[in-house]
């Protein structure tokens, strides 16, 4: 594990205050919508209002006469533009052009673009664009997509399966055939990442160079994609990601609007801005989850699972998005076994296309779906075996002596506090429940305790998601003649305090005050190629590359300092940013002296030392697989974080309302750079998980019309829905990452669906309610209560579950 060596870190592990805050608190942030360039035009997209249709004709004749309109374009007008590349060999190719050509496959699909002198005029004119659609029957669910004779989204395919990876494990078959088994079917609904800042793009062409500002999590990957799709040299493109108002995965994709706005700037020779509105966001930015997991498992008398077979089936919407949405289902498959010792496991993965907005990345990336399924399944197994569900879990959870632990899927769980975190969450949860039992009255209210444990693959292979990039990132360090430090990184800052954390690691690595460090991220002209911020990766990869670059700079600085001190280089040491001869702190030279010699008074440089005091380095995380082995096993992440959550809910039997009274997180992301920032990440992630458990759901009507295209209908929780969050840290250092750190961004989102489903089921255990779906709405819960009652009375309910697919 790369470590500090002789350096004494002062900021690592400390609650360093965020450098971003002073500007953001006073309205001095600079988001993409704040960019206004001379002569700038504004674009509005014409989007399909039907779910599935042949696109016959786009008529701009009225729109072009509208006040302020400069131009309007449809797919056929986009000269020089190519299809988005699809690098993934293990799924069917989805051919996607930035504007729809001959067919629309979801409400919100971009069909045309109108450019005017301001957004009001552009939106007026967009309403005058006449589009001739010949409607086709829409396919809107997994069941409809897989039905025999279902309408197909892509005529060239034999069915609607965009990815279909069967399982074949005779040992699992044998065990299941010869043992008592339990089965279950679990679903997590379609959600939207919904950062508070929508997407937006500004582009201009100056001196033949295209600059694209975009609210993006991966600036270099966008640059590469723009070069490919626009057919222009990548060196002529600069991508800048200014302040980003949240990403949560949705902004890792490369979107049609980014290509089209860039193309408009080239074509019209004027700056062009497009700022998405929320209604657009809720139909055209990627959505996620929408997954069904079917489990069958055999079990031992103690309630532990001896073999497990899973089918993961994901509805990825139309599939028309760069960086396809299929790969979350592979992560679901990988995360299903969490930190449970399940000796035999096989899973098939199927992704279907439907006439809904394309799916993609959203915080958690397949893991929340998996943990909901396995947690509810374990409880069902325990109930069947007649074992206490907590005891059943205790039989299966990883112990320290099991680590590193190779799971049947190929996951290599490198480290963690799996049992300890679980026991702590249970302890805190049980204490909370006992407290609540004292104070909660009402004979129509039931209390329940829920819990879960999970592992999170952090610093994942991007090859597994894109078929192209891997997992590395880059950093560059320059020391200026005044001793100031500039560090640039390939990761992006999307609101998570990245600049503060980068500055702290750099300051420690060079032993300079943090105020001396200037951080540059999110500008492809200033930063070496990197993959951006997603997959709970940034801290590990920027730390790895910063430590390597800093070491090169320190070594060179030692040579120069030795010369300035007229000492032998091996005798020179650096302490607190000063170079001196070992054993005597004077005389000494500082970074400014060394950098002045390196950059300005190069006459002072010793023989053989070249001018300049800067270095660039990359860090490619070791010990992860980018491809499965011959048996289909793959360890897709550099290191695995873990956590256990617990929570107490109150369920109102009359209204079906669920109130979260306590929520507890015991979290382990290895060594922590900045506990304040880590806690903030956990809080926000948990709130999003709670949102998925109880509130948020993208709904379409039977014709494919979105019913949740505003915040009146798509319910982001407010401060009155999210309870107080109690967070405890465990620190199990990652053995192979720099400084033992792991990623943290997504983990908190993984737990709440499972915790609340477990808690509600516990609260209603006397009624036999077994929650299998989220969101758990009042209506779905009342239905589940009624179904459970009917079931007990001997009737046969249609679906004894807590889900509500048509809320």
């Amino acid at each position, binding site marked *: 594990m790369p470590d500090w060596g002789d350096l004494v870190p002062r900021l690592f592990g400390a609650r360093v205050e965020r450098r971003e805050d002073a500007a953001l608190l006073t309205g001095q942030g600079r988001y993409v919508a704040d960019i206004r360039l001379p002569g700038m035009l504004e674009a509005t997209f014409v989007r399909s209002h039907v779910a599935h249709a042949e696109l016959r004709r786009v008529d701009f004749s009225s729109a072009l006469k509208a006040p302020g309109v400069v131009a309007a374009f449809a797919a056929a007008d986009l000269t020089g533009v190519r299809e988005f590349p699809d690098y993934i060999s293990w799924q069917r190719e989805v051919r996607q052009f930035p504007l729809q050509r001959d067919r629309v496959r979801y409400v919100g699909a971009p069909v045309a673009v109108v450019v005017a002198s301001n957004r009001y005029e552009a939106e007026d004119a967009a309403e005058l664009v006449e589009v001739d659609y010949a409607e086709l029957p829409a396919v809107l669910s997994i069941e409809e997509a897989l039905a025999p004779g279902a309408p197909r989204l892509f005529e060239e395919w034999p069915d609607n399966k965009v990815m279909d990876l069967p399982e074949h494990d005779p040992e699992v078959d044998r065990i299941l055939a010869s043992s008592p088994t339990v089965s279950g079917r679990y679903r997590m609904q379609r959600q939207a990442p919904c950062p*508070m800042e929508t997407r937006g793009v500004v582009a201009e062409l100056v001196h033949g160079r295209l600059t694209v500002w975009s609210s993006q999590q991966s600036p270099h990957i966008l640059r590469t994609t723009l070069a490919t799709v626009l057919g222009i040299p990548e060196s002529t493109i600069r991508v800048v990601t200014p302040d980003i*108002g949240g990403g949560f995965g949705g902004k890792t994709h490369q979107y049609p609007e980014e290509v089209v706005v860039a193309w408009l700037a080239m074509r019209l020779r004027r700056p062009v801005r497009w700022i998405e509105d*929320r209604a657009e966001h809720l139909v055209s930015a990627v959505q996620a989850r929408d997954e069904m997991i079917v489990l069958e498992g055999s079990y031992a008398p103690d309630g532990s699972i001896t073999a497990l077979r899973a089918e993961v089936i994901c509805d990825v919407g139309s599939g028309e998005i760069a960086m396809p949405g299929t790969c979350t289902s592979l992560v679901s498959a990988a995360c299903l076994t969490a930190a449970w010792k399940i000796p035999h496991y096989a899973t098939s993965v199927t992704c279907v296309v439907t006439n809904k907005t394309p799916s993609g990345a959203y915080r958690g990336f397949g893991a929340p779906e998996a943990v909901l399924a396995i947690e509810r399944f374990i409880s069902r197994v325990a109930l069947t075996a007649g074992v206490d569900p907590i005891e059943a879990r205790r039989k299966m959870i990883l112990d320290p002596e099991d680590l590193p632990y190779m799971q049947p899927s190929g996951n290599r769980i490198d480290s963690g506090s799996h049992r300890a975190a679980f026991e702590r969450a249970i302890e805190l949860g049980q204490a909370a429940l006992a407290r609540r039992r004292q104070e909660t009255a009402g004979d129509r209210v039931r209390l329940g305790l829920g819990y879960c444990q999970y592992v999170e693959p952090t610093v994942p292979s991007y090859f597994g998601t894109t078929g192209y990039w891997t997992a590395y990132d880059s950093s560059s360090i320059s020391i200026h003649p005044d001793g100031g430090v500039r560090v640039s990184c390939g990761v992006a800052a999307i609101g998570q305090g990245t600049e503060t954390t980068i500055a702290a690691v750099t300051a420690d690595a060079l032993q300079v005050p943090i105020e001396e460090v200037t951080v540059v991220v999110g500008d492809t002209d200033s930063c070496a190629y990197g993959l951006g911020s997603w997959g709970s990766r940034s801290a590990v990869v920027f730390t790895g590359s910063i430590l390597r670059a800093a070491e090169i700079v320190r070594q060179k600085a030692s040579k120069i300092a030795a010369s300035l001190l007229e000492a032998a280089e091996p005798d020179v040491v650096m302490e607190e940013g000063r170079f001196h001869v070992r054993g005597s702190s004077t005389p000494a030279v500082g970074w400014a002296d060394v950098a002045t010699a390196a950059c300005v008074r190069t006459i002072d440089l010793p023989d053989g030392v070249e001018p300049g005091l800067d270095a660039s380095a990359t860090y490619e995380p070791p010990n992860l697989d980018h491809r499965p082995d011959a048996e289909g096993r793959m360890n897709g992440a550099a290191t695995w974080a873990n956590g256990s959550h617990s929570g107490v809910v109150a369920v109102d039997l009359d209204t079906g309302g669920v109130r979260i009274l306590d929520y507890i997180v015991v979290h382990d992301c290895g060594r922590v750079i900045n506990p304040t920032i880590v806690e903030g990440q956990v809080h*926000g992630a948990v709130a*999003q998980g709670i949102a998925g458990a109880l509130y948020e759901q993208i709904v379409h009507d039977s014709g494919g019309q979105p019913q949740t295209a505003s*915040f009146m209908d798509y319910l982001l929780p*407010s*401060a009155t829905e999210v309870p*107080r969050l109690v967070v405890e840290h465990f620190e199990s250092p990652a053995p192979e990452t720099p400084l033992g750190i792991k990623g943290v961004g997504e983990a908190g989102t993984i737990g709440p669906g499972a915790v609340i489903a477990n808690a509600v089921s516990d609260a209603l255990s006397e009624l036999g309610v077994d929650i299998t779906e989220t969101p758990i709405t009042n209506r779905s819960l009342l239905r589940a209560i009624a179904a459970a009652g009917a079931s007990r009375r001997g009737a046969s309910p249609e679906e004894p579950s807590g889900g509500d697919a048509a809320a």
Partner: protein
Amino acid sequence: MSTAQAVSHFAISCEVNGTTVDRVVAVRQLLADFIREDLGLTGTHLGCEHGVCGACTVVLDGEAVRSCLALAVQADGRSITTIEGLSGDGLTSMQQAFRRAHALQCGFCTPGFIATLSVADPSDYHDEAGVRQLISGNLCRCTGYENIVAAVCEEWGIERS
């Protein structure tokens, strides 16, 4: 209306962050767009443009108002304070509390929270539930509200439950 002639523009005079502003605005222009585009005060953010998220909250004659639901012409003869005006030379005491408590991450919603809080009377709030109710009209996607609630309670001397 007695005349058939549609009025497309209107001259308004208002006070913005203490300075008198005289402008001709399109009658349909949103107050938020007037503030951001015409006046260049981009600290007021648009998160939903339908009055739910609260990111665009400004202070209009002493009241917290969603500038995406108001028209620029409605500001005629009135006084607007945006996040730029609410911030002094440094950080206000509430802004400092936000900073100490890590009550912001991406910062997009933050000016709206600060605006909402700026017109609230702390003596009306005695417990955490009241604070949560007060800020429930402002959505934040990053913090889970935990540290926002902590910041406000700290600033107003409210013991958390």
